[in-house]
């Protein structure tokens, strides 16, 4: 059984005035124990909302409208208050985008470890000052930071160090699932690479299930084993990372046109000729009802059926793809075996 299973998940934002915005629409997703899954999409694709929903961190005006989230056999979608809080220990954790905003600016790092450890302490656990310092030192070592960081305030640390501290705090309760929401977006490439390597090592050594949310398909393909592509609140593609790059090279048409467009945003700066394509147009307004495929207005392959009927997320080749045209034209029987 999957560690986490989400079925027919719908999340809406209800502003005080105006139309409800459907940020996550009918998402089905199962995460296996120990998997490293990347969720990719542009701003407004619903990837962050989905990550917050899976860890039950949605706050108003966001609201989980419908759907089931089972974590290790427990339906966590319906849990409230103290019962939900208890699930967080050895359960699921969220690492936020900006380390600065996730840390309390007026408390030392040691006291922030203390807050987490005391709030979730079980009977007989050592939450004395010494105990917290000992745990904090171990957790910081896991993210390659020295014990001197415990005495510091967040503003005394660099962006990369703060992000490492938030990861260490997430590790404190020994979660089995960690959702990393754009953990390196505010960092430069060298620091980004180092932080991602730390996340990869931790995941491998500790065996938790990791979800990496990012707008950067390049980072996700470098890190994750499986890639979930979101567009306008829906999953449009779900595939092993290796199969995705193989699809690109063999040009079999087994992936979504949006994924193809995302791949076009990358190139090797060392190549003799460097071409780069953006994605023209803008994502749809999610407060309006979506007729047909949401990507159709920006899609080079769009046909009449795309504008009328929203394509289901169906098995195609080595994964799942939501596209009428690809489902019809891809030569799945011949190619699937070779790719996977």
């Amino acid at each position, binding site marked *: 059984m999957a560690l986490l299973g989400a079925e027919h998940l719908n999340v809406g934002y209800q502003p005080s005035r105006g139309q409800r915005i459907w940020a996550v629409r009918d998402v089905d997703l199962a995460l296996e124990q120990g998997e490293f899954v990347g969720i990719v999409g542009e701003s407004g694709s619903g990837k962050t909302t989905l990550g917050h929903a899976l860890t039950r961190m949605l706050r108003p005006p966001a609201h989980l409208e419908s759907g089931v989230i089972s974590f290790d056999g427990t339906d966590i979608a319906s849990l409230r208050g103290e019962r939900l809080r208890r699930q967080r220990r050895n359960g699921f954790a969220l690492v936020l985008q900006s380390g600065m905003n996730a840390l309390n600016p007026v408390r030392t790092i040691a006291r922030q470890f203390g807050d987490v450890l005391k709030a979730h302490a079980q009977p007989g656990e050592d939450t004395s000052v010494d105990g917290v310092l000992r745990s904090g030192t171990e957790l910081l070592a896991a993210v390659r930071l020295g014990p001197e960081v415990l005495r510091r305030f967040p503003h005394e640390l660099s962006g990369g160090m703060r992000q490492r501290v938030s990861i260490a705090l997430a590790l404190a309760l020994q979660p089995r699932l960690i959702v990393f929401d754009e953990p390196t977006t505010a960092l430069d*490439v060298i620091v980004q690479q180092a932080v991602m390597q730390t996340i990869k090592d931790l995941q491998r050594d500790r065996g938790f299930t990791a979800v990496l949310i990012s707008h*950067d398909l390049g*980072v996700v393909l470098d890190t994750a084993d499986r890639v979930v592509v979101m567009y306008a609140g829906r999953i449009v593609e779900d595939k092993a990372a290796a199969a995705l790059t193989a699809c690109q090279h063999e040009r079999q048409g087994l992936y979504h046109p949006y994924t193809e467009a995302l791949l076009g945003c990358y190139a090797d700066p060392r190549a003799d*000729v460097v071409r780069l394509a953006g994605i023209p147009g803008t994502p749809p307004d999610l407060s309006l009802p979506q007729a047909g495929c949401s990507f159709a207005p920006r899609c080079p392959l769009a046909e009449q059926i795309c504008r009328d009927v929203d394509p289901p997320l169906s098995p195609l080749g080595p994964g799942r793809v939501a596209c009428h045209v690809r489902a019809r034209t891809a030569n799945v029987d011949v190619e699937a075996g070779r790719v996977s």
Partner: protein
Amino acid sequence: MSAELSRTGGPPEATADRPASPVPPLSVGNVSKVYRVRGRGSRTVTAVHDVSFTITPGAAVGLVGASGSGKSTLARLITGSERPTAGSITFGDVPVSRLRAGGLRNLHRRVQMVFQDPYGALNPLHTVEYTVMRPCQNFLRMSAAQARHRVAELLDTVGLTPASQFAVKLPHQLSGGQRQRVLIARALASNPELIVADEPVSMLDVSLRAGVLELLARLRRERGISLLYITHDLLGARLITDELLVLNRGRIVEHGPTRQVLQHPQHPYTVQLLDAVPNPFATAAGVSAAAAPATDRNRS
């Protein structure tokens, strides 16, 4: 858009928007900047150490390095926001490093900046039209009617069409890419001769970057504006610059034609920066992503 295309710097053609006099070179000569760290003791930090380079008229120069390498400090020195501790910066015959109020104001008509954060650099209470009008009125002494007319032209130039629809919007009604285009329109308003773009695409979605980079390359090509492109993104630098300066801990560690520096990096730090670029194709194919070239109208 290809790098080959952007490398054709060439002599600028004559257009109405071109600065009247030829664009002068920017010279940075042996510039250092030392900051004193407040608090206990009197520690100092050398953010920029003995840096020299020249931006020839109409050239696009990339300044690359990780956080803390001194890139943004150099930008502040070049735009006159701060003064160097040692060395000199001249823009044509204007001594940038010694300017005071009136001279700085004059400089800012000719040297404009595009900032990293398109969310923080726009006043949330002002419409796009007001934001872009102000430099037309302040620097070019235009009447409100003239300025409005110019705003429409500028929005059209940066791909925010129809201009009338975007002019009335407030920043929160725009996407990140659209806001960055407003910032570029504002920077263009005073007919600058040099644009200093400090990480203009690093906060944008990957899918929107190509469009904004293409816009910067086109402005330089069509208007003969010199460009200093500050970034840690080597792919962007490759696409729109001809010359590359690699900055590490305040010093220039490598300098040369962009393609040559990236294909044959000499300094380990440059190699490190190159290896850190996320690239789904580097491992498997080692060749460029062949996709349709972005068009000028590749709007965000």
